[in-house]
């Protein structure tokens, strides 16, 4: 036969490391598809650990690490995981990672471990983690899954850090334990409401309000 039928070597264009599609994995959850304010997941820890900035930062890093690596592991195993037990497999992987984070904190950041204590363990129940595994990692390649996890982790992080910023500023008159008002020479009365979880609800509500007004997002 003629040469036309000869198979052309399939040159699959390698996707750039940060292609437009991949960038969206990271940027979408920051605003338009934020896990906390739009999907309303992970609210529990957004209330519990946001009294001060420093523990909040540790929590944000811990959650981001857990999402990224559980996404990676589940994505690597996605062709092996039997469908019937996939939830329990995800749970086991997440629980292992969370326990590792908790043990490392206990060994190298004991003061943080004492503050965050149970909440680190409760990352297991953070819906964002399992949500990303179910919705993304089970059906996508490892690298994409990591990016997706990073996006969700950062989306969660900036929200809880924003909540913690206002709670610490008004509740304890400090930022990262630095007494801002005292440094400015102002006598600022602290607001007990901000130290309570109610303060977190209010600030989170305000953030959601501002964000939805700006994005024109409506619940369907």
């Amino acid at each position, binding site marked *: 036969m003629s040469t036309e039928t000869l198979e052309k070597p399939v040159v699959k264009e390698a996707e750039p490391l940060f292609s437009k599609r991949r960038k969206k994995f990271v940027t979408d959850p920051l605003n338009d598809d934020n896990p906390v304010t739009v999907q309303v997941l992970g609210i529990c820890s957004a209330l519990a650990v946001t009294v001060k900035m420093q523990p909040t930062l540790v929590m944000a890093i811990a959650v981001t690490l857990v999402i990224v690596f559980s996404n990676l592991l589940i994505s690597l195993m996605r062709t092996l995981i*039997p469908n019937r*037990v996939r939830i*329990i497999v995800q749970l086991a992987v997440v629980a292992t990672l969370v326990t590792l984070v908790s*043990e490392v904190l206990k060994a190298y950041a*004991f003061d943080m471990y004492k503050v965050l204590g149970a909440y680190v363990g409760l990352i297991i129940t953070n819906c964002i983690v399992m949500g990303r595994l179910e919705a993304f990692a089970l059906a996508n390649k490892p690298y994409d899954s990591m990016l997706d996890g990073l996006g969700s982790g950062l989306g969660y992080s900036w929200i809880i850090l924003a909540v913690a910023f206002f709670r610490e500023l008004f509740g304890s008159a400090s930022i990262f334990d630095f007494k801002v008002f005292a440094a400015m020479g102002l006598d600022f009365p602290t607001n007990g409401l901000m130290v309570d979880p109610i303060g977190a609800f209010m600030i989170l509500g305000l953030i959601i309000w501002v964000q939805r007004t700006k994005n024109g997002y409506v619940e369907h």
Partner: protein
Amino acid sequence: MRQSNAYVLLFSGVMTIILGGALSLASVGLKPAQTKQIELDTKKKILGAVMDISNLKTGEEVLALYDKRFKSVVVDINGNPVEKDAKGNPLIAEKIDIQKNHKVDKEVRNYPVFMFLDENDPSKVAAYVFPMFGSGLWDWISGYMALDGDLNTIKGVAFDHKSETPGLGARITTPEIQGRYVGKEIFENGDLVSVTMVKGESGKPQDAHHVDGMSGATLTGKGVNAMLENYLSSYTAFIKKQKSASGQSAMAF
């Protein structure tokens, strides 16, 4: 194939072994660092009851200072030294978990005493630190109380808690509340009266056996009172022995 029971069982088994193995490795590998952190935390709390240690930056400095200035002993409810636990292992005061210890019956509990030695004359005890444990409003509270060398005047206290309400009961960890205990006395005419936190926050100074309360945290205050009463009464035998011993000569431990 991926749906067969055998595959599911095999997959679960292998996964359990791998994850379990990883966790065991981490646990064993991190154990020394964790033990050291817990030890450091305990010693920081003990030191914190007698002096300001906020100028000490590293853990090594804290441990060095502790080793230099502290001696410890474990006593029973009658004030007699205990050297071995029920299994015959040597007892180390710093290693006693006060939370676990608290669950044991009061009569047979081991009571650690930490002695803060005089800076110039290490044969004298400048302060005694007693660990204590009890219940707050929501969960456990714990504390270290330091008594002056006279075993009556409070030199300082350091309270800790698990989940008292922030801004209310959790104030027991603040210097403001703990400072109220300094200079109070636990004995009157040789009888233990402890120090009681009153109800309500008047802002007025109280007599030698009472401290001002915490507004909105009366129940946490009650927990603290009960804890002090409970443990000080257990230490009374030791304190009395120590007092009469130091009346004659320097006690020997």
